[in-house]
């Protein structure tokens, strides 16, 4: 009888412990990218700088790859197959690395001959979204290679898409139509990195789709307020299966919360509701709103924000 009792106790012990499930972060969206380090470079004439690149696969994991390098003007900056750049003439170029058919974002490479000349231009603004017709004062700043400001320098302003955002000679931007424009300023032949301005893009919305044979209905709307905070709203038609241990997440994968942001725990299963999202989250950071049963790791439904 003692042995039998031991068997029952053993079974109890096996079933009774809270174990641990190790889950690989699930990322089905294509996160492939080629990234250059550093993103901007300043070098003196004849100086050599080694740039590095990394390739991220579809899951966003760094993976070995063979890179090719190119300069928009090899007479200013020449770069070899190993990423070794040689500053040959004063000026500015962009460097691009490629791997597996994918290009990196252009990396600015500026060559100077004098420590007091403009080596870097930066652009800033109090916000990066505009309504059509709304105006935004943008500020440019020039500095030398040591980071010291160079006041009084004239700037020229440029918009990549004037039909979306127009910018005048003083850096005053005006929203024209919905879309995205890249604003830059240049001084002394040195251009800033691009500053993204979105017009009419302070609202993203999507309809919930039920998943895994559970039910989620309604529309989710993510809005960026004038003070840059985000507000997530579900409309009157929102409903889901039940609310015990069910959470709202922002995620880039409709099937997983990994890498996502937990907005709140649902306290009721239907009706209109509004949640605040902290400023650490940006309007365009996540693609989906997910209704997720957290203990069992089941996605009840997702809304793709557009």
């Amino acid at each position, binding site marked *: 009888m003692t042995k039998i009792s031991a068997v029952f106790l053993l079974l*109890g012990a096996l*079933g009774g412990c809270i174990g641990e499930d190790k889950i690989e*972060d699930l990322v089905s969206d294509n996160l492939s990218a080629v990234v250059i380090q550093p993103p901007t470079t300043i070098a003196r004439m004849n100086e050599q700088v080694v740039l590095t690149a990394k390739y991220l696969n579809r899951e966003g994991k760094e993976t070995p790859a063979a890179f090719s390098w190119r300069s928009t003007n090899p007479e200013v900056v020449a770069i070899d197959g190993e990423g070794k750049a040689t500053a040959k003439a004063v000026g500015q170029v962009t460097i691009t690395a490629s791997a597996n058919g994918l290009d990196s974002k252009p990396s600015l490479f500026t060559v100077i001959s004098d420590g007091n000349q403009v080596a870097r231009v930066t652009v800033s603004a109090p916000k990066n979204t505009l309504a059509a017709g709304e105006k935004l004062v943008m500020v440019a700043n020039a500095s030398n290679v040591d980071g010291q400001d160079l006041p009084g320098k004239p700037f020229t302003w440029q918009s990549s898409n004037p039909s979306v955002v127009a910018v005048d000679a003083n850096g005053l931007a005006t929203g024209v139509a919905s879309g995205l424009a890249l604003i830059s300023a240049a001084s002394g032949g040195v251009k800033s990195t691009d500053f993204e301005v979105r017009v009419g893009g302070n609202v993203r919305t999507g309809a919930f789709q039920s998943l895994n*044979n559970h039910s989620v209905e309604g529309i989710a709307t993510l809005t960026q307020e004038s003070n840059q905070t985000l507000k997530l709203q579900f409309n009157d038609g929102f409903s889901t299966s039940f609310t015990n*241990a069910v959470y709202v997440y922002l995620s880039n994968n409709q099937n997983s919360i990994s890498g996502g942001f937990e907005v709140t725990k649902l306290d009721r299963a239907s009706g209109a509701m509004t949640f605040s999202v902290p400023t650490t989250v940006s309007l365009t950071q996540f693609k989906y709103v997910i209704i997720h049963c957290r203990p*069992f790791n089941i996605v009840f439904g997702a809304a793709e924000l557009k």
Partner: protein
Amino acid sequence: MKNHPWYLLAPLLALSSELVAGGGWTQPRHNGYFKLESRLLRARNYYNAGGGITDITTTSLYTTSLYGEYGLTDRLTAIVYFPFVTRLVVNKQSFRPSGFTVPGDAATSVGDTDVSLKFGIIRNKPLVLSASLTLGIPFGRVNAGDTKILTTGDGEFNQLVKVEAGLSFPGGYAAAVVGFNNRTRSFSDEFHYGLEVGTSVKRFSGLVRLYAVQSLFNGSAGERVNSVFSNNVEYISYGPELAYTVRDKFGVTAAAAFAAAGKNILAAPTYSVGVFLKLKK
């Protein structure tokens, strides 16, 4: 693993009627059969409402129960299934490489208890017939655990009426059952049916059992009631059970239950071991 038809389900909540050989036979007066049993289920999937398999956090169900049949008269047998320890455990989730974690959860309580009366309609013949009424008393908990999502019972009062037939033949027996489970709290009623064949060789007995539950989908209680697995549960399960009689009155059993399909139920085999005692006057 999803492609393996043998990787199947076991019910989240036990029903005594599918756990023991009963058939159409009743216990003679003052005779009985008593069994102490432990069952273990560990599921990494569940059958969703559409019958498909969905991955879930590993969920374990451990049940220790007492089962007893006692002949009040030669025709009337009282049956009790009492799961005095029911523990449901949901694992902690650790995402890699992000390091994000979700804590696990657990709940322990007495489980839903079945009390039955079985009446022998045809007895002492090769073909026997009986009818029974089982009352499912909801001793188990709903909205349990830190997450308030775990269940050790269905939270409603079952009333299961069954008709069972048994056929004895040289070397073995066959039994069949049909039943109707009237459920409360707007849960859907259920149709039950099952088949069983068994044989004995010396001290060993073996049986194979098929048991199915079909929801009538006539209850308005959706999964909002308490859990993912609360209403409109369906399954078709099958499995063997072996018993070894150590002495005249005392023996041990081992059983497994698998299933071919299911809805709203954990998808994993159930394994059980038990000891039984026969009371003979």
